């Protein structure tokens, strides 16, 4: 264990919850606090930041909140570059912690907003010469942070056959799976993505499920660590999220729902295997997604969830509500025939 609740006033240690004999959830209020705290600690140890350094990051999600909490604790200035998808309540939570929210104007619903955010990030970096950008997508420390999560799993659950994790930067899944494989090299890592995310060879496009998937290739995703990929559409994930609450009392966010869908299915089909899935955040942030009427009005409601994933023979063939593909720990190029263009991992 690297840090305590006492020190951070917020959990760094997840709650492992047994749902069935062979199915475990690793439930976080805010998983991204783990890498945020770890990355700032390492940067400090390596002399990359001092007390005057301005931390700058682009995020519309939980990593921004994780950094906001940690910067507040450390008494450091934090500039968060984000987009209008961030709800006003969430924004207030950030500014109350002293975070400077630097909002880009674009309202594009697809991946283009990411380019606008990167341009703004450059601006903020010029404005604050003494800055440090943790860079969750390409900073190796993000992956390394998950040794503490794997430690918790090793202590509370012991032997693990399968890890299911939603994939955005790749850090939580590849990190946790990698560390658990020290004890079980045969551990199966199932990555959960969503359609129109480029991570596993789908074309970039609009996505209704946020908090996983990506429009760019992050260096923290090690494709050769991945055994299977599942693509889950938003509406299916939202129903699974609600089912996780109704059946197991776990009130978590939509990426937890998507991972539960996949893990629950795998655990039922393999009763002799211990299946663990990560639940990256709490459900409080998503009142609309729990509201069936709101989902219907916005065309995000599916009356019936598919009973099984549809297995496809290539990532491009994934076009249903819930598809899966045997990735078999291969490099990206070998599976897709396309070169993998992305930054180098920052060690």
């Amino acid at each position, binding site marked *: 264990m*690297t840090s305590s609740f006492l020190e951070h006033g917020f959990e760094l240690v997840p709650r492992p919850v047994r749902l069935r004999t062979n199915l475990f959830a690793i439930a976080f209020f805010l998983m991204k606090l783990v890498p945020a705290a770890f990355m700032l600690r390492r940067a400090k140890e390596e002399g990359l930041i001092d007390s005057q350094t301005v931390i700058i990051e682009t995020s519309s999600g939980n990593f921004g909140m994780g950094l906001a909490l940690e910067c507040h604790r450390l008494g450091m200035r934090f500039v968060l570059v984000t987009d209008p998808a961030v709800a006003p309540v969430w924004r207030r939570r950030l500014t109350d912690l002293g975070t400077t929210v630097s909002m880009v104007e674009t309202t594009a619903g697809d991946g283009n907003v990411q380019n606008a955010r990167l341009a703004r990030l450059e601006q903020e970096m010029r404005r604050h010469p003494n800055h440090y950008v943790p860079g969750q997508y390409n900073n190796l420390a993000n992956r390394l942070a998950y040794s*503490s999560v794997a430690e918790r799993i090793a202590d509370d659950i012991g032997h693990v056959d399968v890890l299911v994790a939603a994939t955005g930067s790749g850090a939580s899944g590849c990190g946790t799976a990698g560390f658990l494989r020290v004890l079980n090299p045969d551990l199966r890592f199932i990555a959960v993505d969503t359609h129109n995310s480029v991570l596993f060879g789908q074309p970039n496009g609009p996505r209704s499920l946020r908090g996983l998937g990506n429009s760019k290739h992050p260096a923290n995703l090690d494709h050769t660590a991945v055994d299977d990929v599942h693509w889950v559409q938003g509406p299916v994930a939202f129903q699974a999220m609600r089912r996780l609450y109704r059946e197991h009392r776990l009130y978590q966010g939509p990426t937890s729902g998507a991972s539960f869908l996949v893990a629950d299915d795998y655990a039922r089909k393999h009763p002799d295997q211990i299946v663990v899935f990560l639940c990256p955040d709490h459900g409080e942030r998503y009142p609309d997604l729990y509201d069936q009427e709101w989902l219907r009005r916005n065309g995000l409601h599916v009356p019936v969830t598919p009973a099984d994933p549809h297995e496809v023979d290539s990532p491009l063939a994934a076009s249903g509500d819930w598809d899966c593909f045997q990735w078999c720990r291969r490099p990206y190029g070998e599976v897709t025939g396309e070169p993998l263009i992305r930054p180098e991992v920052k060690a």
Partner: protein
Amino acid sequence: METTTITSMAPVLAGAVARSHAGEILQGAVRRADGIHRLLFSLPAPTLWTKAELIATPGRALTVDPPWAKKTLSAAQLLLRRLGSPEPEAVIQLTTNIPLAKGCGSSTTDILATLRAILRYRRITIAEEELARLIVEVEKASDGSILSRPAIFRHREGLVERYLPGPLPNVHVIVIDAQPSEIVPTEPMQRARYSEEQLGAFDVLIGRLTRAFGLGSPSDFGAVATASARISQHFLPKPHLEEVIALVRQEGGYGVGVAHSGTIVSAMLPPQCLAESDARVCGAVRELGMEVVTEFELGLGAQQEVAA
């Protein structure tokens, strides 16, 4: 011959026994807020021991027998200085069955037995953690054999990293010398340089080892040993390690530990394992050119005391 007669008739001022270990279940390092700390958990070996006796030699300065055990003598002198005691006119007589330079901590065990004998002679007790730090001063390293409770031990600092929440899991151990003709001196050995990933891996192994003690679970215990042994292969490889792991698995065993500064490999089988099972593992490792050093049972209900 004459010396033997004299000492055997001379009064024994005090004596003590220390038990050794058969390599490590876990050895590595972790990153903490104040830096990187090396740590280990050794596999206690109740059948491997050193007996130290302080035998009066009136008119002669403190010496040690065998005379090459100079560090033992230094440790004894250091402890006496700390206690403010004059050196007794005596010889420290060491008797041991621990194989030398194999990674079983023979040197540390000799010192520990000696320090205990001196404390007994002086009728003083000091905290075991303090004793551990004293050994580190002389040896540059120590191991957790000193401690009366299982603990992950910072062996370069002589400090406890974490006490483990329970007694040793119950296992049958076959201690094997994987390279009988090799000698691995502890001191000149290059220290392992762990990668960032390996540092993180040790967090996970500590988690699993904590579980093993909390539940008294030999399978968790064995899984940690095997994982740590595999990491050790990058630094001090043991021949045929994967074959030994497979052998142990075939017999329903739990895992394999190694000495991180030696040639010892320890196979962990179920407690009171079948004689045939034990014989198959012993036979197979001998065919690989290895030697069986000793065997014992560990944990709850196991016979811990061995005549010494």
